[in-house]
């Protein structure tokens, strides 16, 4: 019971945390691109755009950072047996993340927010790139730790049957990590690009600051399209790697109960099989596709759940080693189908850019703001697929989730903390979405925006063209009024 509650809490808090992480990573990269454009061609429109999307970025970072603290504490709070057992390995990347990446990100973010008039343009630009790089570096260490749970490497079992780190490099050359890390980074770029596209489209539809928001719409489509296509390829390769080390995960994702020797079909959609999808009544299939996805060969063999279960019982003793098939099957499909939808949408955007009608495309601009929901569903489905598919293991083959919880924490404790987190997270979520929409709909200052190319900015003066009367920009220049 306490383990189940602890799992609910960890799942809730980490899914919530990862709503904000990809926006932060993706949007930081895009804001850095905008600021680089401003630095290069001195067009004040790019400064306004940097501040506009920078505000949206900061609203997200605020929630993303603080919900990340919860994750860092929860291993010890809820999973003390796990922390004790694998801390000498798993704790390493977490400590490195703090020391190498998180310090860098937080310090330079503070300098970036308050440094608009304190630093030279070049140094200030360096700050946002350091923030972007540090957020990606942060993800690197976290993914190295997470990949170790999927496929433990670089350790030996000592005389007390405890894993002991012997090779730190193995964590960073772990095949699961090598595919999962770019997968997460590209998913973040997809998320950030869709957010930027959504707000740009909203403004274009209303003909507000068309020249400026056409630029951000084009930039976001140009980041989105390669990112989503590359990521579909990387995701399928990650599937092959996980199929090798965690065959249960892939078999469950296909609801494949009996082993298929070769030319295995991929089930596009099936119903009527109950929660475990054992005997679906309706099934639509594509021949050979599953073999290709799981093994890269059309005649590859894909192991079934029953077969794997029998193998695992032989290897690890009695128990149920099959993850929740419903979550696996649908998690995989929601993720992949949404990715395909996003890819089509990106192609549509590219076609409109080529025809130079992006800023006037009525339907595209109407759909784009609503489309912002898709990356969040896709990311969540992907994490459910990969983490639920690891069950019943907390570390594949080494420790079961059922042995990992804190013995001294009662279910009352977890009820209290879970309710507190849910209530606080719901209100923060409402506030965050409200602020995003509120600030995302604000207009750019018109006098500055459509002024056109480099000529508008004059010389290298940082602020001269900006001395407008808006209270917003006024506050930003007086250090006393930033908060």
């Amino acid at each position, binding site marked *: 019971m306490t383990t189940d509650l602890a799992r609910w809490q960890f799942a809730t808090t980490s899914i919530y945390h990862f709503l904000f992480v990809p926006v932060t990573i993706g949007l930081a990269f895009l804001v850095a691109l905008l600021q680089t454009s401003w630095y290069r061609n001195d067009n004040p429109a790019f400064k306004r755009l940097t501040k506009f999307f920078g505000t949206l970025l900061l609203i997200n970072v605020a929630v993303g950072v603080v919900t990340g603290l919860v994750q860092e504490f929860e291993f010890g709070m809820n999973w003390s047996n796990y922390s*004790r057992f694998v801390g000498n390995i798993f704790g390493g990347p977490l400590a490195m993340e703090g020391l190498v990446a*998180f310090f860098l990100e937080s310090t330079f973010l503070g300098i970036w927010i308050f440094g608009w008039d304190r630093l030279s343009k070049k140094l200030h630009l360096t700050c946002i790139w350091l923030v972007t790089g540090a957020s990606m570096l942060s993800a690197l260490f976290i993914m190295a730790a997470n990949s170790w749970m999927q496929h433990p490497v670089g350790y030996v079992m000592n005389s007390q049957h405890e894993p002991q780190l012997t090779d730190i490099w193995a964590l960073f050359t772990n095949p699961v990590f090598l595919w999962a890390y770019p997968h997460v980074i590209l998913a973040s770029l997809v998320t950030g690009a869709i957010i930027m596209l959504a707000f740009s489209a909203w403004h274009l539809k209303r003909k507000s600051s068309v020249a400026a928001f056409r630029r951000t719409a084009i930039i976001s489509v140009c980041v989105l399209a390669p990112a989503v296509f590359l990521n579909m390829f990387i995701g399928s390769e990650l599937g092959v790697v996980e199929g090798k080390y965690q065959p249960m995960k892939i078999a469950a994702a296909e609801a494949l109960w009996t082993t298929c020797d070769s030319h295995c079909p991929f089930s596009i959609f099936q119903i009527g099989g109950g929660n475990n999808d054992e005997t679906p009544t309706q099934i639509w299939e594509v021949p050979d596709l599953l073999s290709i996805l799981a093994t890269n060969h059309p005649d590859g063999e894909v192991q079934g759940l029953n077969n794997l279960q029998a193998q695992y019982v032989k290897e690890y003793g009695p128990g149920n080693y099959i993850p929740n098939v419903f979550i696996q099957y649908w998690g995989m499909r929601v993720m992949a189908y949404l990715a395909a939808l996003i890819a089509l949408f990106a192609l549509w955007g590219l076609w409109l850019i080529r025809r130079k009608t992006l800023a006037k495309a009525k339907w595209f601009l109407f759909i784009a703001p609503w489309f912002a929901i898709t990356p969040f569903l896709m990311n969540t489905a992907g994490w459910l697929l990969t983490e639920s598919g690891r069950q019943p293991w907390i570390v594949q083959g080494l420790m079961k989730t059922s042995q990992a919880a804190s013995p001294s924490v009662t279910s009352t404790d977890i009820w209290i903390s879970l309710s*507190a987190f849910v209530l606080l997270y719901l209100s923060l979520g409402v506030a965050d979405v409200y602020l995003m929409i509120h600030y995302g709909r604000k207009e750019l200052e018109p006098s500055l925006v459509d002024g056109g190319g480099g000529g508008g900015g004059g010389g290298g003066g940082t602020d001269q063209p900006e001395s407008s009367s808006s209270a917003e920009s006024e506050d930003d220049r007086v250090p006393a009024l*930033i908060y």
Partner: protein
Amino acid sequence: MVHLNNIWFVIVAIFWVGFFILEGFDFGVGMLHSFVGKTDVECRIAVNSIGPTWDGNEVWLIVAGAAIFAAFPSWYATMFSTFYLALLVVLLALIVRGVSFEFHRKIDNPRWRSAWRWSLTLGSLFIPLLLGTALGDLLHGLPINSSHNYTGNFFDLLVPYGLYTGVTLTVLCLFLGAAYLTLKTEGELHDRVARLSGRLGWVAAVITFGWLTWSHVGLSTGFVPNPIDALALIAVVGAAWLAESGSQGWAFAAAATAIGSVVGSIFFELFPRVMVSSTNSAYNLTVANSASPSYTLKVMTVVAVIFFPVVLLYQGWSLYIFRKRISGPASTTEATPAGPDGAPTAPIRPPVPAAGE
């Protein structure tokens, strides 16, 4: 490799000391901002004095926790599960406090703003209070069994000595925050925080003296104060005296030394233990029985040796960039430069002179 265990104990202690010094003045400012600021602008000046640096300062706590995780997994496991509900409150406080900096100004509505102001005030109160209590509890001892699991409930965490440690550190944060604000403000606000800092100094000195006495007499750690205790006492009395006589830069430095040495003294007394078991001293967690194997410690040492000095450099640089006093919007153009005693730390000069000055 007992050797590296000891080094990592010292590193963990340094992170906690650094956290309480750096985030200590942020907590102090957070607790005080609504009370020292008579107008909206003054409140905002107070908060903006920590605006650029609080986030980086808070990472010291994260790294302190993560360093314990990597270097002393058993300590991390026992400590974080023992203080479950206390850490829940710390987390909730960290969340609302962290978000308040960004969200406060975003909507022009009095209820919205006052909600975030209270989040900052109360968040800044509860974090040092509860973390201080936890540090005191580590030293005082808690019911921990032979498999290093806590056997008490939430109320068993509220040990008087622990609570008093929490109060001591919170009051020191208040004093440090006031001393910091005297360096960052001008005019009426400055005079107000300077008077407050002068008074808080003596309160902090009395409470710290009480804490030192309790540690020595109550926990029978011996009658002779160790060097760190002596430093804490000299620093806090010195800071109070300096704050009252108006040497604000030195008062801040002395107050920072005081809070740092109080935290340092807890770790000094703990060593070689990391968590004391009140059930049986044989069940104590120690640097020997809770540490990672030497390979992990070696890896972490290499990482720390390379990156920690870099962190110190850029964090020092960020304090240096924002060293100026913050003036109100009346003198919109530029803030007046701080006196030479103004900058808390200025280890390096910026590579490029700040623009527009």
